[in-house]
């Protein structure tokens, strides 16, 4: 999950990266979470990003009925079988 978030933050605009990193660091620590609780918008932004990374895990999304690997496999088979790009 950390790797996904690191890749996501690294791709962002240079000026935003430090703020986003700080936000995610706070979200990972109990004291940081307590601080974020007093800043609802920041808390929601941090929670949303952490949740996106959390549910991107194939096993977790599969448990919710979404099988990314099956979607990709079906797509690959279809493209190769029908000569799609």
């Amino acid at each position, binding site marked *: 999950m950390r790797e*996904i*978030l690191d*890749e*996501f*933050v*690294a*791709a*962002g*605009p240079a000026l*935003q990266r430090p703020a*986003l990193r700080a936000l995610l660091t706070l979200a990972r620590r109990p004291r940081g979470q307590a601080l974020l609780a007093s800043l*609802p*918008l920041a*808390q*929601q932004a941090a*929670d*949303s*990003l952490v*949740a*996106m*990374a*959390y*549910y*991107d895990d*194939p096993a*977790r*999304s599969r448990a*919710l*009925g*979404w099988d*990314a*690997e099956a*979607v*990709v496999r*079906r*797509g*690959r088979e*279809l*493209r190769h079988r*029908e000569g*799609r*790009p």
Partner: protein
Amino acid sequence: MCVVGAGAGGAVVAAELAEGGADVIVLEQGPDHDADRFTARPAQMLPRLYREGGQTVTLGDPPIGLPLGRGLGGTTLVNSGTCFRTPPEVLERWHREFGLELDEPVMRPHFERVERALSVSEVTPELAGNNAAVARRGAERLGWSHGYLRRNAKGCVGSGVCAFGCPTSAKQHTGITYIPRARAAGARILTGVDVRKVLVNRGRGVGVQARDAEVRAGTVIVAAGTINTPVLLARSGLAGESGQLGRNLSLHPATAALARMDEIVDMARGVPQSFYVDEFSREGIMFEGIAGPPSYVALSLPLSGARHAEVMSQYRHLVQLGLMVSDGSHGRVHGLAGHPVVNYSLSAEDLKKFRTGLARIDQLLRAAGAREVFLPLGPGIRPETAQARDLKLVGFHPLGTARADSRREHGVVDGSLKLHGVDGVYVADGSVVPSALGVNPQLTIMALATRLAFSLLGKPAQPTP
């Protein structure tokens, strides 16, 4: 001829020019994406397919996300594939206010040509899936006008991840349609090329300067997109005369509501954007279906902590519907150390449209049988009292920053999309679109690019590619 950018405008103009016999080179800043590397995982694909990882944000009230595609195909690579022709009333407005001779009979052959090239057709209810079926039920119960959207897709099986790289290559984005056609007709397509300047000599375009190379060309077509084109032109010392460069930015700001149903929806099984409700389009309010895998929903669900987890555990029962506002607000793009900075604040009039739209989306979802509706607002905030800062907005359709106007003191390009005051330099992307459309703009941009190509070739466009 040198084309800068390979998105909705650049790829189309390049293919049509190359097939018409022109010597064409396309310079694209992003990469050529390989569909074998698409993972159907939003968090993984955002950094790979989107400019700045999909995290470009406007400065203003409220900050608005600007998800822009990067690479061959541009934003057509990551959009939902929705295809609307420019509404006739918008074309009439362009004639009236901007002096553009682009009425429906003029544009029709260009639209037809693009639609055939991209296999545009209406989504079937079966392919649209349950997310659309729920929205349809709500619209029918309320008697609101609605329909299935037309899309550029061929052999779609409803993978549910249009915005994160179509795994079946069913979506006919320009990177797999027009770019291969351009290449087959002899165009050279270069990726990873960062164009820094358009070169002009004695009032005529003579080429472009990239970071590591210079390309000489008698005609330059800038198609770097609504956000980057004005920065490139300004850096080149061009188009500043009218004072309009970078101004007049419209975004078609959007938001979306989620709802929990009793039934299993499995929103990502089917075409994510397949259904619309246009009952309030005259008020500038449009609803369009939107959907995605759990990680995408987790990002947009307006809840925190245990409550977020509890609702996510009901993912299979969640439905989502988007709200787009045809904006009268105007933003501005300018360059700062070579990077675009976007300023945009929502006007009071557009805020009112969002308040109304959110109240109606709530009404529609409840009419469809929703147990709970999650509007994109903070705790305790009702649509009727929401302020701009309370809204969570995304701008999917930036337009207007190098607007076309027949009068050189009011526009950046003229009706033929040529820069006012400079010969041999044209613009072919969303930046030339002079006003908000109220609908998804890719077909408008592509049709305008087609028209430009045939005007440069000096022959009329035929409806069949």
